[in-house]
């Protein structure tokens, strides 16, 4: 599973493959993540120990349940995990720190699906980004474009497929300017499929590496808008067979149990290949991602941890599992 950017992207251009991450940047990221999560690993171990180490009584298991539910893991998944841990504790006599570590292992397992890669070996690779209103699609695309252009030295074209929300195109255009990449736009209210089609055409014409297509935010319960999303997907495939190669769904980390329904409905319209878990820099833990991974087999591939351009990061299930249990 991916731990840094070089693990996330599959590239078949050897001269580009080894784009080294500047050590200070990585240090910067770790610091930022720690700051944003506000706790350290040591603090976690203390917490887990306090929860399960001393007496494995009813109350400590309940407290564990509470921690997971408060992290939006959901009642069903929580009951499952805690039950398994309880059984293991009884069977193997596991206790103390080892039990805490085992819990994190269990959660990491649940959060892990596949290798988490984003395959950029198509030419161009088409990435479609969808999600509910306000989950951070446009911002995610901006950060992703910035990373691909500035850090991976790839040529990127953006397609401003959100032709519905007022000023959405202007917002994406600003991100394109910051990232230093081209953007294809249509008029307000124009057909998002046409914009997507044109973006891929432009990408092919200019021999771009990656085309990222934005879409309007939509509630997963709006059948006509979900049908529109399916259409954008079909249009992309028409312009370039096999496109979109990656369909990313942005899920706001503050989302509760509704996140599972979102992922399910979006997947029905346009099979989702990865989740971008956004806004993890708040106090929300994004535990719903575990339910999405378990029930639908869709991995989290990227996380959003802040407002800065470099605040989009690869997903690390282990770190994620630890963070879930922090107070």
């Amino acid at each position: 599973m991916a731990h840094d950017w070089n693990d996330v992207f599959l590239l078949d251009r050897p001269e580009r493959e080894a784009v080294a991450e500047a050590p200070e940047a990585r240090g910067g990221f770790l610091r930022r993540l720690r700051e944003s999560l506000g706790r350290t690993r040591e603090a976690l171990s203390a917490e887990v120990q306090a929860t399960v180490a001393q007496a494995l009584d009813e109350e400590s298991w309940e407290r564990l349940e509470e921690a997971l539910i408060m992290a939006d893991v959901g009642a069903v998944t929580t009951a499952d995990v805690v039950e398994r841990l309880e059984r293991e504790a009884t069977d193997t006599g596991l206790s103390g720190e080892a039990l805490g570590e085992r819990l994190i292992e269990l959660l990491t397992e649940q959060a892990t699906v596949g290798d988490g890669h984003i395959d950029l070996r198509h030419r161009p690779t088409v990435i479609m980004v969808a999600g509910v209103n306000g989950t951070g699609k446009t911002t995610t695309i901006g950060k992703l474009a910035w990373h691909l252009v500035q850090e991976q030295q790839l040529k990127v074209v953006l397609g401003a497929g959100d032709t519905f929300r007022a000023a959405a195109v202007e917002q994406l255009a600003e991100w394109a300017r910051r990232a230093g990449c081209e953007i294809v736009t249509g008029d307000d209210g124009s057909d998002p499929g046409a914009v997507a089609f044109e973006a891929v055409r432009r990408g092919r014409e200019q021999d771009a590496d990656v085309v990222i297509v934005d879409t309007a935010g939509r509630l997963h319960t709006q059948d006509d808008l979900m049908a529109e999303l399916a259409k954008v997907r079909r249009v992309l495939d028409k312009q370039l067979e096999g496109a979109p190669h990656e369909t990313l769904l942005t899920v706001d980390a503050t989302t509760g149990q509704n996140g599972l329904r979102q992922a399910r409905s979006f997947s029905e319209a346009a099979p989702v290949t990865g989740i971008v878990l956004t806004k993890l820099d708040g106090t929300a833990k994004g535990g719903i991602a575990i339910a999405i991974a378990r029930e639908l087999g869709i991995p989290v591939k990227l996380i959003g941890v802040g407002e800065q351009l470099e605040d989009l990061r690869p997903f690390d299930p282990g770190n994620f599992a630890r963070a879930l249990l922090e107070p």
Partner: protein
Amino acid sequence: MFDGLSDKLQATLAELRSHGTLTEDDIDRAMREIRLALLEADVNFKVVKAFTTTVKERCLGADVVGGLNPGQQVVKIVDEELAALMGGTAAGVAFAPRPPTVILLAGLQGSGKTTAAAKLALHLREEHGSSVALAACDVHRPAAVEQLVTMGERAGAEVYRREGETDAVAIATWALEETRRQGKDVLIVDTAGRLHVDADLMDELVRIRKATRPTQVLLVVDAMTGQDAVNVAQEFAAAVQFDGVVMTKLDGDARGGAALSVKAVTGKPILFASTGEKIDQFERFHPDRMAQRILGMGDVLSLIEKTQKEFDEDEARVLERRMRKGEFTLEDFLSQLKQMRRMGPLTSLLGMIPGFSGQQLRNLKVDERELDRVEAIILAMTPEERRRPELIKGSRRLRIARGSGTSVQQVNRLVKQFDEMRKVMKRIAGGKMPDMAALLRQGR
């Protein structure tokens, strides 16, 4: 919007109803189910705990155990406690004794502040006849100002913006002066989305609050928010002492437990519900009715209010008379259909009818395009044909099909369905109520 929760509570309580008397065991089992349902609905863990404890205590009281109809009393207690938790009657905007009234909107990124600001502006213009201005104070998100300008135009509210200014506090101060100068009744201040743990941005919000001294501060909360809603609400309450909440994206299928949580931990009422992409999909939040709705009793009151707003009463009386006499024509049907559709999508109306919530409604997808076709077919008829559908045969059928862009089969089906409907109406007039769900299935 709370369909899922009401389904689950109903299932649990139906089981209770089937028992003669309640044992403590029964109550515990019911509480477990309620607890699970509330957690699935994203009601905060601690709120759920407190809620089930209270309900259980009351259920264990003498008036339940050994009572005549214990199941019903549990329903009543749950209903009462939910109602208490959600708050009393619907409250609106508090206006300043001397204008302008200043309303400050705050919330997380993506909660829907800018859309809510424009919708609130339209609401105040329409419901209170206020002249409204919007202050564009989101200097952080790219193109946020442009979004507010466009939305403000649609709402008929002036947008005060200052290009190049990066200090949100300065914009807010200036906008307030403009509001006074131009004699506007209300200023709505739209602010950037911010995380409750972002000290700098929270400080900016506090300074905007100090500079504008708002009559009311509203927190905008996404109905899909999970357990974190409590943290968010508490932090914003501590920083800017908000007075009420706007719940957004309530048109989705989120069970909206966040509404319960926020109210329970801050004591602040939910004032408005934002329920769609259109600018007029914004209404007063009715906490008392919401509790009833949670229990699957349907939001009958909301439906009645909506109906009253849209239907012409005299016209309705005339219609009723004609229905009774079996004189109902396709023309009447068309005008009814149009009035009904003015109230919003059919599914949202159906959701308010008791016995129509939950699973039933999910299976019953009303295709709005089908209604478009029905309208087109009727519009392609001559007035005479609308009054006497039995005239529609052979070449008339073909003409109507061509004129409406449909097929002869579709015209036929409509005429036949209309005939069925007339029969049903006569039956209703005779005092027998039809099975609504079956009727709708038939109509499809």
